[in-house]
């Protein structure tokens, strides 16, 4: 049985280390904590989207050529490759397109025992085009009871706590 790349050749190439080797200083390392902070311009479309979220409303934008109502709103339609047209308010209810029950957080660490797992979902918003979804969290529902096709409604933060962010909606819950 012919082999161009053999185990012996490959074994010599890399030295494996364990997390302990690093922590106990068995190999020399240097550390760096980058101080990278950003202020991303919202642009006109996202700016309006966030401003409307502060008012407790969700707004999209229509492209007349493909007749889609785009969410989040965009200044140009990415399919027709042309500037979009009028602003359109959409509802704050929708349908679960797909979802997850997650026991890990963004750092790949496990959530504490007993804490409710995250249940993010892609929610198709009523009033926008079919299939037009946004990512958000689901809550006030047992994870095992969530299903694709479930109807949900946004739960908003009280007006004075809203700042113009996607988190002005706390989560969506079944209704």
């Amino acid at each position: 049985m012919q082999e161009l790349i053999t185990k012996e050749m490959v074994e010599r190439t890399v030295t494996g280390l364990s997390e302990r080797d690093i922590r106990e200083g068995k190999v020399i390392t240097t550390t760096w904590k980058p101080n990278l902070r950003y202020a991303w311009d919202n642009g006109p479309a996202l700016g309006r989207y966030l401003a409307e979220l502060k008012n407790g409303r969700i707004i999209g934008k229509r492209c007349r050529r493909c007749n889609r109502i785009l969410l989040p709103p965009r200044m140009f339609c990415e399919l027709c490759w042309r500037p979009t047209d009028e602003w359109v308010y959409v509802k704050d209810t929708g349908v679960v397109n797909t979802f997850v029950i997650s026991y890990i957080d963004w750092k790949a660490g496990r959530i504490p025992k007993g804490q409710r797992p995250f249940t993010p979902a892609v929610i198709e918003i009523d009033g926008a085009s079919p299939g037009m979804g946004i990512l958000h969290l689901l809550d006030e529902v047992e994870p095992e009871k969530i299903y694709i096709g479930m109807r949900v409604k946004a739960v908003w933060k009280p007006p004075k706590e809203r700042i113009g962010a996607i988190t002005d909606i706390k989560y969506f819950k079944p209704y």
Partner: protein
Amino acid sequence: MALIERHQKTTDITYWEGEIPLNYIYTVGRAGERFFREIMENGRIIGARCENCKKTYVPPRIYCEDCFARLESSYVEVSTQGTVHTYTICYRAMDGSPHEKPSIIAMVKLDGADGGLVHFLGEVEPEEVQIGMRVEAVFKGKDEREGSIFDIKYFRPIK
């Protein structure tokens, strides 16, 4: 129809703040491990010699950049003395605040090597520094060394 809207007031410009919350621990690699251990344990500077190209690399590498030969069995000691190849004088720190005392950063070409190290110059006034000046490395005491480039405190003029 235009894609670009004009803002009349700067307060109309909205933005979203965020950060990239990551940090790093870098290994120094096979060649780097040898380089820093020699500095840390023996106060010596090591380079890598390519006999094909007649070049000595500092810091050492496991390969020759020009002919791709493996250099791991031809590490050599180079001198801790060298010549100032070029230098600059820094008056401000990275965040723009002024230094108490200006610092001198130099590229020191080490004797016996085709490369050198970038480091501080010490025990010398900025006005006295010249390209071509002979300098030598000043190491920290052995128990203070950690296997970092700062195990060399600075280079100073050879008296």
